[in-house]
């Protein structure tokens, strides 16, 4: 037999084996889960969550469990469940998630009745420092400029999320035009979400649309700002640090708004009244039964029925669940970043359901899926829920040195920190800030005032239903007004 005839089938078998191995490798599911911008988690802030799955079964489901417990409290799980469409090719799921300090994060993708992929994140590497996100080929220079205190992250334009909430933990976004241009929406979302967007130096033509946001000075935009700056890397670092130093920290602002309860639980009947009524009824029932025989017993039974009806009418609170809310809106330019806080006080034990992105203010077990948040609450307890921040139109503005109400609702209890109370602003009305008589600030924002720099303007609207606290940090130049 010739050697060539023996080699032919072998080669064929080898080729078939390689093809089979390749097809198996292609069919093998692959799942990548990334939490935070560029995979950098900021603890105590909303973070983007991105899942990229390849060739996973149709109708798969992702479960991520954040154990927010400590040694003292034990496990406090927050479970996130999201559907993954699956099927051949890529499936991408994006979501915003609030990451509280955690002990561990575990995740698993379920499909076809089993676990397709799983992984975990250790709690040891968690970092609460905000990010300085750099879109540049010269990221090393920025890292050196920001020094060891900074947390500079080099990402590509495609990794930038489009939701303002996802930038909760981002201090600055620096674009210098040396890398691929980011989407305008992503940059605007970053500024609105609270980051300082720095346009460093002249940008190439590919970045032309960013000039819509950039100006020579700092341009506030909702909770953040946009700054165009020429200068060295150190100048950028100084500008970012200076801007962060004068901005009131948002987590503390939210905590200050929630300092006072939004709901007043119902007053129970007075103890003395209840005990006196019970004692008198008992005495009457015993006396009537002892002294008057069958008519006495019938009277006691009738009295018991009447008293039961009266107790049901007068002792029962009218509402089993009370909801109070307050919104903190950080004003910058024509926009504001609104964070709604909602307190739910329940008398019977219940499961609280909220059909939007939210988190409880304190660490407690809860669950989030595509329908919203679910949280078990025992009877006679309350929970404060913090909704994910969203961008809204701002009614409060400073126009030609005057405070202006551009909204449809009156702005009441206007206060300029450093000047004092100002007159209420009707829709369309304007008033020049002037020194007012000092008095106690409104209880809705009293806890905020010590955190605010001079010149900050605070105002309220729609307090009949749910107060919105409009807050424009350092809007008015108080020192300039004093000199005038």
């Amino acid at each position, binding site marked *: 037999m010739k050697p060539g005839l023996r080699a032919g089938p072998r080669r064929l078998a080898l080729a078939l084996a390689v093809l089979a191995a390749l097809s198996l490798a292609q069919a093998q599911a692959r799942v990548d889960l990334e939490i935070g911008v560029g995979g950098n988690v900021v603890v105590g802030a909303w973070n983007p969550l991105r899942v990229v799955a390849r060739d996973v079964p149709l109708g798969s489901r992702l479960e991520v469990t954040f154990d927010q417990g400590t040694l003292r409290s034990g496990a406090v799980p927050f479970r996130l469940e999201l559907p993954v469409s699956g099927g051949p090719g890529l499936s991408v799921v994006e979501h915003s998630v609030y990451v509280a300090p955690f002990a561990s994060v575990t995740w698993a993708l379920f499909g076809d009745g089993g676990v397709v992929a799983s992984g975990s994140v250790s709690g040891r590497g968690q970092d609460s420092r905000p990010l300085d996100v750099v879109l540049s080929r010269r990221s090393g220079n920025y890292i050196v400029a920001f020094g060891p205190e900074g947390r500079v992250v080099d990402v590509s334009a495609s990794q930038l999320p489009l939701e303002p909430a996802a930038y909760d933990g981002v201090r600055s976004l620096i674009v210098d035009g040396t890398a691929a241009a980011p989407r305008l929406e992503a940059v605007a979302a970053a500024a609105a979400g609270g980051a300082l967007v720095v346009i460093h130096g002249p940008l190439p033509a590919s970045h032309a649309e960013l000039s819509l946001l950039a100006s020579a000075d700092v341009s506030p935009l909702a909770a953040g700002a946009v700054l165009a700056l020429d200068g060295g890397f150190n100048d950028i670092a100084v500008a970012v640090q200076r801007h962060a130093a004068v901005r009131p920290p948002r987590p503390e602002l939210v905590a200050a708004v929630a300092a006072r309860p939004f709901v007043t639980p119902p007053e129970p009947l007075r103890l003395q009244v209840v005990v006196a009524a*019970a004692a008198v009824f*008992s005495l009457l029932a015993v006396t009537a*039964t002892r002294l008057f025989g*069958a008519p006495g*017993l019938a009277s006691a039974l009738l009295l018991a029925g009447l008293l039961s009806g009266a*107790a049901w009418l007068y002792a029962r609170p009218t509402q089993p669940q009370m909801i109070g809310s307050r919104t903190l809106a950080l004003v910058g330019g024509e926009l504001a970043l609104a964070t709604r806080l909602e307190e739910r006080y329940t008398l019977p034990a219940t499961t609280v359901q909220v059909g939007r992105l939210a988190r409880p203010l304190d660490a407690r077990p809860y669950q989030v899926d595509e329908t919203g948040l679910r949280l078990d609450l025992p009877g*006679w307890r309350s929970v404060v829920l913090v909704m994910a921040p969203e961008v809204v139109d701002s009614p409060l503005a400073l126009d030609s040195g005057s405070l202006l109400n551009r909204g449809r609702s009156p702005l009441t209890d206007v206060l300029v920190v450093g000047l004092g109370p100002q007159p209420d602003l009707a829709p369309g009305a304007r008033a020049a800030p002037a020194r007012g008589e000092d008095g106690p600030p409104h209880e809705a924002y009293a806890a905020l005032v010590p955190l605010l720099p001079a010149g900050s303007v605070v105002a309220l609207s729609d307090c009949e239903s749910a107060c919105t606290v409009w807050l424009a940090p350092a809007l008015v130049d108080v020192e300039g007004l004093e000199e005038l």
Partner: protein
Amino acid sequence: MTLLAAAAARLARQDMLQGLTGLLAALCLVLAMTWPGGSSVVNDSWDVVAPVRASLLALAALAWGAAVGARPKRQELGAAFVPTPETPPHGTREWRHEGAATLAALVAMFVVTAPFDVLSHAASYPPVSLGWSLLAPLLGTCGYFGLGLGLGRALRVGRLVALLPLAVPAVLGAAVWLDVTLATRAASPWFAVLGPSPVFAGFMLVLTTLAAWTLRPVREASA
């Protein structure tokens, strides 16, 4: 004599009147201790008032049921013994009437103490409906009365009537132990009132039926 009059007469006797007074006093005390006072607004008084009421009613029903069931039969008393109207011999028409009047008096005690349950339920918003909160103690009272009849009779037959004061709380304690051991709400009125329990309802209905059958009016054969 109507059932209401018989119940009133039975309730007016010293033993039951003291029992009713004690029950009302205990409920007043529990209400005063659990009702929120001062700056507190959290009202969980029902969590204590309802189980205490259900348990005390069941204890009373078991005790008086056992006392009625443990009465000696006519032939055990001897020919010379003349029973009083309050202590009729077991199995006689008067005994059945006495048992029915005692049960009716216990039901009256249940109704008279109902405002405590309704008041604490209204103010507490417990996770149990008012219907079950009222039904469970009624079932427990009637059921435990039936159990008491059987317990008293068994002790009389076993010549262990002297153990009756110990047996009554022991039975109630055994019911609690059973529920705790089996992690169920089948026997103890304390746990049964805290959540709907078909097993408890069924068990108590059977005992109530047995009690009603035992106390049914029958025509005695003429001598």
